[in-house]
């Protein structure tokens, strides 16, 4: 799925890659909230444009645009559903159109904001942010491992599909229900393999003294630098300005 390209972190040397992940997390949370709150396409376009400088500075344009192109499928679905619902609710045509466009565009904005975060932040940095933000280590680690094994699972799913296709499984054949049933020979080995892997990873972790102390240390700790503070200032100020003006003017 092309849209997943937006979550495929690679090491980088840009300012954005080096920024403290907590600052980026603040951006993610504040601006996604605005994206969910705002309904006007103009405001949404503005939010979309806010992520563009980050994407440009981080030189992640390739994966970012792939991710957005990949979301086209979802955008169409969202538009159609919203449009239909709005018409049923007997909204005037223009309003129905504007609203549906806004809803579908909101999805694009969210993809853009999320991928500008995930493409520049390693799973480890995310975990470290969570830990330094006082999330219990076990939860942060679970999250980290889930992300780390996504490419492994994806590779394995491909191998399993190849193996079953070699035994005559035709994924595209048959009725809708048959097509769903065709996934069983792929999902079952994948799930079983994941359980087996979980046991082995647990063994490996214990063999490296996991659980020895309650307060782990870390090779790297996050420390906010000048760039981070500047970035946070801009983000928080824009967020406040947008939200306050929106409330005052009564325009979303």
């Amino acid at each position, binding site marked *: 799925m092309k849209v997943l390209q937006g979550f495929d972190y690679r090491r980088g040397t840009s300012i954005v890659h080096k920024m403290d992940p907590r600052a980026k997390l603040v951006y993610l949370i504040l601006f996604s909230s605005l994206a969910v709150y705002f309904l006007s396409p103009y405001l949404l376009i503005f939010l979309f444009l806010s992520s563009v400088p980050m994407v440009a500075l981080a030189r992640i344009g390739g994966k970012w645009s792939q991710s957005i192109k990949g979301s086209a499928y979802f955008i169409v679905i969202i538009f159609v559903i919203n449009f239909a619902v709005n018409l049923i609710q007997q909204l005037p045509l223009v309003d129905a159109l504007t609203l549906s466009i806004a809803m579908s565009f909101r999805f694009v904005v969210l993809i853009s904001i999320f991928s500008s975060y995930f493409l520049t932040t390693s799973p480890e940095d995310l975990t470290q942010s969570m830990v330094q933000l006082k999330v219990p280590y076990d939860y942060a680690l679970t999250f980290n491992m889930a992300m780390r094994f996504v490419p492994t699972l994806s590779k394995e799913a491909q191998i399993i599909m*190849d193996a079953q296709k070699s*035994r005559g499984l035709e994924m595209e054949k048959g009725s809708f229900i048959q097509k769903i049933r065709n996934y069983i020979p*792929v999902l079952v080995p994948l799930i079983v393999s994941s359980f087996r892997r979980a046991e082995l990873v647990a063994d490996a972790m214990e063999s490296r003294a996991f659980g020895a102390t309650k307060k782990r240390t870390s090779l790297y700790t996050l420390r906010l630098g000048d760039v981070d503070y500047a970035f946070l200032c801009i983000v928080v100020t824009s967020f406040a300005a947008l939200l306050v003006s929106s409330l005052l003017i009564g325009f979303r």
Partner: protein
Amino acid sequence: MIAFKGVSYSYLPGSTILDDVSLLIGDGELVAILGENGAGKTTLVKHINGLLKPSKGTVLINGKDTRESTVASTAKSVGLVFQNPDHQLFAETVEKELSFALTNFGFSPEESQERVNWAMREFSLEGYRERPPFMLSGGERKRLALASVLCYGPSIVILDEPTTGQDSGQKDRLATLLKKLNGEGKTVIIVTHDMEFVADFIPRTVLLSGGRVLADGATAEILARKELLDRASLVPPQLIDVCWSLGVQPSLQLDEVARNVERLVGGERH
């Protein structure tokens, strides 16, 4: 008959996994595709059962271009056994696992039943008919995965890294099985980096490195050529290493090597 004509394969632009591979494997041959990890061996055999189609060149299986058939129709005559049985086993019972391919390939219920019974006898899985595959031991699961591919009777059988993690006894049994399949007229291909197994049991070797065929011919000849092995980043089989260390004629036959070394020792005595 398997024919590769100038086959190149790229997954991403700029990275060629197979580079101008031309190859002919006749019916009933026993061949090893040998090379280090990453040489392109698995990619090559996936072209044989149609899982992959060449970016350039043609692959003909029994005269038919693989691009003109679905994977399922090519796979009916080409059985590919993957390295890890757990990537295949999914059914509720051993019986259902064995009938999976048979159902997919359109065998009648009566014939399916016959073939399932045959597979269970042949691979010592009788008594496990109703058992879930996951409850079998590692070795039993490996046999089951193999059985579930062989039971639909493909004329070409490919095994991907079948000797990984196997002890010597298991490898001997594998060799016996390969000879038996070959004796039945099947074309048998193994993909491996196991020099010893190839040296001991497989008459023909196709040496692959960096997606290109470095050599193709008699195992005894190819595995004795140092410059080829160096280019392919492979270590020589033990007997060849012994021969090189002692300066005797390279050979893959233990008796011959022993005799040559005896002669050497005898000669040096005087």
